[in-house]
């Protein structure tokens, strides 16, 4: 009894002596991988950023048949400081995108969502952190990317998901993503960037089951200055939870090729 009391007291003293940053790191975190925080796990964001990364109120959806389940839920947004600093021409394009959102959002066609969008879609994703590279496997469309943790490599060609080079800054995983093809949107509201986009992601554990995500967006063709999104991701802890398969191609073929059925095939 006395010993336990003493032990606890010693522990409190020891904690008090640790710097504040180190204290949060000791709270039941998963074992490190090669000395770095282990971000591995099944993660998902809450919220409605995929509808619109900016704050928005509830709205009706495009199909009255879907009633309440097809309506747009409200959200506080994930853009730091609310404003997205579009250049004038880009702002016009964003408005056009918004007007045509139900037709032109690439994700409607099961096209790759790009970065950062893949990280806050309403689907989970799995991080597999090795002592070398780090895999991000997204449930939506079986999309995936590997973050190269070795010597940074220049993008070989422009792609939807970009080319990811990462490094650790203390306990934060920093990933530079470049080499985008400029075809992905940030959300269903038509926010977008060009092929000059550069995304700098910062991933850090807040505790064992909460992952902080910050992405700095730079694109001099589209924005007047860099801006940021902030998202918190939560670990799936349900027994048996795992990444499932959502291969959406076959859900989109009537939408994409249906005009041929009617005009060409006459069926």
């Amino acid at each position, binding site marked *: 009894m006395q010993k336990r009391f003493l032990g606890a007291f010693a522990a409190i003293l020891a904690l008090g002596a640790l710097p504040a940053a180190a204290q949060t790191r000791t709270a039941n975190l998963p074992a490190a991988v090669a000395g770095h925080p282990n971000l591995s796990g099944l993660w998902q964001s809450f919220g409605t950023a995929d509808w619109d990364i900016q704050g928005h109120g509830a709205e009706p959806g495009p199909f009255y048949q879907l009633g309440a389940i097809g309506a747009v839920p409200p959200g506080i947004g994930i853009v730091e400081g609310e404003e997205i600093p579009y250049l004038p021409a880009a702002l016009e394009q964003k408005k056009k995108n918004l007007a045509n959102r139900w037709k032109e959002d690439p994700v409607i066609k099961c096209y790759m969502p790009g970065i950062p969008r893949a990280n806050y879609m309403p689907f989970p994703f799995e991080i597999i952190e090795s002592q070398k590279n780090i895999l991000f496997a997204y449930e939506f469309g*079986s999309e995936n990317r590997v973050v190269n943790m070795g010597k940074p490599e220049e993008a070989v060609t422009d792609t939807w998901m970009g080319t990811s080079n990462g490094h650790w800054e203390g306990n934060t995983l920093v990933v530079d993503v470049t080499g985008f093809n400029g075809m992905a949107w940030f959300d269903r509201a038509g926010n977008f960037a060009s092929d000059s986009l550069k995304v700098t992601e910062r991933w850090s554990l807040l505790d064992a089951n909460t992952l902080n995500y910050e992405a700095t967006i730079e694109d001099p063709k589209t924005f007047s200055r860099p801006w940021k999104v902030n998202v918190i991701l939560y670990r799936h802890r349900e027994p048996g939870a795992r990444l499932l398969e959502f291969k959406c191609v076959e859900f989109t073929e009537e939408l994409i090729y249906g005009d041929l059925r009617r005009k060409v095939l006459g069926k």
Partner: protein
Amino acid sequence: MNRILALGSLVAMAAALPLAAQTTAASKNTAAAGKAFSAPKTAWGDPDLQGTWTSDDTWGVPMARPKQYGDRLYLTEDELTAREKQVKASEQRIVNPSNDNHSPALRQLEAEESGKEAPAAQGAFGRGVDAAPVPGQFGEYARRASKQTSQVIWPADGQVPPMTEEARKMQAAAAATRNRTPSTWTDWSIYDRCITRGVAGSIIPVIYGNGLEIVQTPGYVAIRYEMVHDARIIPTDGRAHLPSSIRSYMGDPVGHWEGNTLVVETTNFNGRVGVGPNGGGTLSEDAKLIERFTRAADNTINYELTIDDPKTYTAEWKIGFPITHEPGYEIYEYACHEGNMAMRNMITGTAAVEKAAAEKKK
């Protein structure tokens, strides 16, 4: 478009590899290297299978064994020498594209356009040791000659066991559908539609895109495949399979380690992909696929796949081949569906052919 881009880069990459590096890799790949080999471990003590791998070296090895080899899984020295010559020739067509025989398919096309007879294609569409080398324009080729006579390693005769009566009927029904002119998207394969190539189809070598990448973390092994893009997350913590209500193309994999071997059992299939190249063929929903990955050398993993599907096949069978690490080989984004212009072209092309045929009849 995306496919073409990726191809171009691969060809450029292959050409840029120093020949010396390729030869070194080849010499390391001999069976003898396996004996003294001590498998590397991850920082947490699991066997380390990580890196990029390709099944290219099995290109040209037929799935089922040509009858002349009987129960023999490996080529004789003479047969191997002959295959080595062919592999060398196909490598030359990649490394030296100015070679007149660069592309049999291109020569064929040029001949058709000029209205002249195509040059004899020397068994271009044969398989195995008798096959002509891989058409160079596709950029992937065996870097070293496979010693195997077939991809099927069990049963001993190297043949795919007969299908069950029920599976034969289903296959015949599917073939009847295929024999009519394909008109709408569902008439093309799951692969043509850029949906997936399935577990077996993602690793069985085809004309290009045979690369995969393995990434590990404590309790998990992940395998991602380049072509059509899939990522399998394989838990090795002893958990049970998903309930049977949850089915999918790639199934539900669970794994465990047996010594240095990763054993992956995959179930919960949706019955819509098979075990052929690119996912062709048939497997039932009840199929169980068991894969074994064993590191055999620094640059080699021995891959083995057991097909256990009593609804489809009258016996269990196995395919197996080495997959190799090649310096400089990288996995690229394969935005298949996004760039699938072929689907529109195939549908409108078929419609045009049908219309022309109908007008001819009038």
